[in-house]
């Protein structure tokens, strides 16, 4: 078989990888190569080295080792029956690309995934080989994220964790029926079984490191997963429920949402409109509410409308506040932190700054204005020394007053 030049294959295999939303390089152990051996460093926080016009961060070299695949998942551009151009890299070629990009400060590291060739085990071995060459032969100290294949042997998945900073397995679809219909070769139980094994390996390694300094680290940046939004009929309420179960059961670092987007060579089993990109954004906002604002999953679900979908015109926190108006207004000079975090328009930082500030002064509307983006949105929900909303909280048209006016779609810029 003749191989097209590296550039051609890079284009094909990067194109094939772009439907994975994650490009995070955060949360791993700190490393550097100050000793003059090896290459690279990691800080606690990842760096986005570039942004594409789709607004996504480019932090890692995100590639498929190959886009040949024996599976036939309908939402996936690389499915067996798709007519896309196929290509493959050898592990050494991926290593060379990673190093030459890294040396020029284009990237933080590598995010490697693959179509399934020959067998799940064979594919997993190839992925591991890339990570091994980088770490062992080049003492690469940058970030490595390996996608692991749930059907592969547990020992192989475990090896991946020894080389990688982060490992991930995609649950793909929020419902089992969706999975059965759109990913006929995959199995929800196998996927969650593999996630469970990873989760316990990560916890064990973490414990061991506490007791023995030299214990090997295992995926120090934890595991994450991705769900495709809008390819099956799952509602936002179902998705939020699924995500919170996953966070609980497998101690995930992140659940990524990827709005299903029209892919070339799409399968006609997806006779559907593209979900609005805003839906993905609303789901991330609800994710934030659960992780940083003390919302229980049921509370986020309460913010959905009758069809189980989060409203698109307003954010989920405002939607919740409009449904539970008896919880407002919140007195910023007296209320506990939890109550203040519920105020739409007040972020975690602003809340903490107000709490610090109110030890020194009585909070007035001007003080709040300095700490937040828009005090106008806040006013119906707060009480300050010089402000008390009269009746505003009870107005029937409050939603209309706070929702942003309809906008024409931007064409450019």
């Amino acid at each position: 078989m003749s191989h097209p030049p590296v550039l051609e294959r890079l284009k094909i295999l990067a194109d094939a990888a772009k439907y994975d939303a994650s490009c995070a390089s955060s949360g791993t152990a700190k490393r550097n190569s100050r000793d003059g051996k090896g290459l690279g460093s990691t800080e606690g926080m990842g760096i986005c080295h570039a942004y594409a016009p789709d607004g996504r961060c480019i932090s890692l070299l995100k590639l498929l080792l190959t886009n040949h695949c024996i599976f036939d998942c309908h939402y996936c551009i690389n499915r067996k029956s798709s007519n896309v151009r196929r290509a493959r890299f050898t592990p050494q070629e991926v290593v060379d690309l990673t190093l030459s990009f890294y040396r020029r400060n284009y990237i933080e590291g590598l995010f490697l995934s693959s179509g399934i060739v020959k067998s799940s085990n064979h594919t997993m071995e190839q992925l591991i080989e890339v990570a091994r060459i980088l770490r062992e032969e080049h003492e690469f100290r940058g970030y490595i994220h390996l996608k692991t294949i749930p059907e592969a042997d547990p020992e192989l998945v475990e090896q991946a964790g020894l080389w990688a900073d982060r490992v991930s397995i995609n649950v793909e679809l929020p419902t089992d029926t969706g999975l059965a219909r759109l990913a006929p070769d995959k199995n929800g139980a196998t996927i969650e079984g593999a996630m469970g094994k990873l989760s316990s390996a990560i916890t064990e390694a973490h414990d061991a490191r506490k007791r023995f300094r030299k214990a090997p680290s295992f995926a120090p940046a934890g595991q994450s997963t991705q769900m495709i939004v809008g390819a099956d009929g799952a509602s936002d309420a179902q998705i939020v429920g699924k995500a919170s179960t996953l966070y609980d059961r497998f101690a995930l670092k992140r659940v990524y949402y990827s709005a299903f987007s029209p892919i070339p060579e799409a399968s006609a089993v997806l006779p559907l409109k593209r979900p609005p990109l805003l839906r993905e954004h609303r789901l991330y906002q609800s994710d934030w509410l659960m992780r940083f604002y003390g919302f229980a999953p049921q509370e986020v679900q309460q913010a959905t409308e009758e069809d189980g979908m989060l409203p698109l015109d307003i954010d989920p926190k405002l939607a919740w506040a409009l449904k539970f108006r008896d919880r407002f207004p919140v007195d910023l000079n007296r209320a506990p932190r939890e109550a203040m975090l519920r105020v739409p328009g007040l972020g975690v930082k602003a809340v903490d700054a107000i709490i610090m500030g109110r030890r020194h002064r009585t909070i007035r509307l001007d003080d709040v204005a300095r700490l937040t983006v828009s005090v106008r949105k806040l006013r119906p929900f707060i009480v300050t020394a010089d402000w008390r909303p009269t009746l505003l909280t009870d107005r029937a048209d409050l939603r209309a007053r706070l929702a942003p006016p309809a906008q024409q779609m931007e064409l450019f810029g």
Partner: protein
Amino acid sequence: MIAITLAVPDDFEEWRDAARRLAGRGVSPKAVMWSDGSGVGDLFASAPFSNDRGTAPVEVRASRKFIDIARSVILHSDAERLNLLYRALWRLQKHPRLLDDAADPDVAALERMAKQVRRDIHKMRAFVRFRSVIDEVGDERYVAWFEPEHRIERANADFFVNRFASQRWSILTPRLSLHWDGDSLMEGPPASRGDAPAEDATEELWLGYYRSIFNPARLKVGMMLKEMPRRYWKNLPEAREISDLVAGAHKREAAMIATGTSLFEQENAPSSLEAIAEGIVQCRRCPIGCNGTRAVMGEGPPDARLMIVGEQPGDTEERESRPFVGPAGQLLDKAMQEAGVERQSAYVTNAVKHFKFTPRGKRRLHQNPTAGEIDICRWWLDGERTLIKPKVILALGASGARGLLGRTPSIGKERGRAITQPDGTLVWLTAHPSYLLRLDGEAREREHGRFADDLAGLARVLATEHRT
């Protein structure tokens, strides 16, 4: 009024010494005018104020938090930062917890400047682009040109040393240049863009990557501009691609929709079998639909418990516009009769509704539909399934099975057993009768036997279904 000029504008220690002396002598911020010297090595200006006021200096205190924030603020390019810092230090002597009050205007200004500096530091780490050159002694060196907004070059050097200690590199900026020789860091004079190499062969790969990782189906230019403002673009090789990518995006998405995904976007699911019969006549969503043949609708009782799905109409079926009336249909009839399954009570249809063929003289030779064509036509088959709600579906051949399962199964491996669908329907696979027609001799005998066995199995399933 005392004028203080800072010799090295980003030297926190120098500012701290001067500020400590002033505050220790009780010099009010209103009586001091701070300014920046011309830059590196400008030593004329250190503190020309009188030291002998007769009183002993009082101890000046500053919180850890203030020191941290001041170390960032001193790097800000705004000359006013020095006065602000001194005023904050002065106020801190009376209000040690001043910095906790984020709503205070001075504190807010300090926080804002510190944030801008931290952001600039972060963006420098992100956007420095090295180009590889071979220097005069034949060694490889990585050289970058960068224009930071604030005076962050020295403060940021450590990051690059930690990351790239094993390679030799230089970062050139309008204020100064930094050089790492693999061992130690050296500082050089200001540089200009022309001092840095103009190209690097690897950039072609990087640009190719940047173009390919971009998803034209989701354009969010505002989001990109927020994180990668235009002022950085001139030193980012990949930024050259942006306007092309944005312009092409709308076009590319439109083309993708035209060829794929949203073929049925405007459609509601068909509400009746008549609607499907009309719909398939009009359907031009795949090449077979466009070949001018007649569409062939399924037929049978609308409440059938058994549905039979073949591949596509053949020559005879197309001419008569009825499914399974040709040779394969006759073979199926006979085999079903022998197995004791009544063909008349079944709804018979095909995975693909038009006849795909290649003309050979006067004859039209059957051609298999592609997976893509079957998948497109599945919209209609799904419609029939939804309306008829069969309990059991017999799939004839791999194409029929694909229309039902959404994947191409191996008939040899999966025939003769029930595959339960998410909606509870049982799908039963067997070979397509036209396959049997193409065989002869021993193979024909064997395959006919297996076909009969499959249908006998189907009869048992139907009987069981009936009892439950």
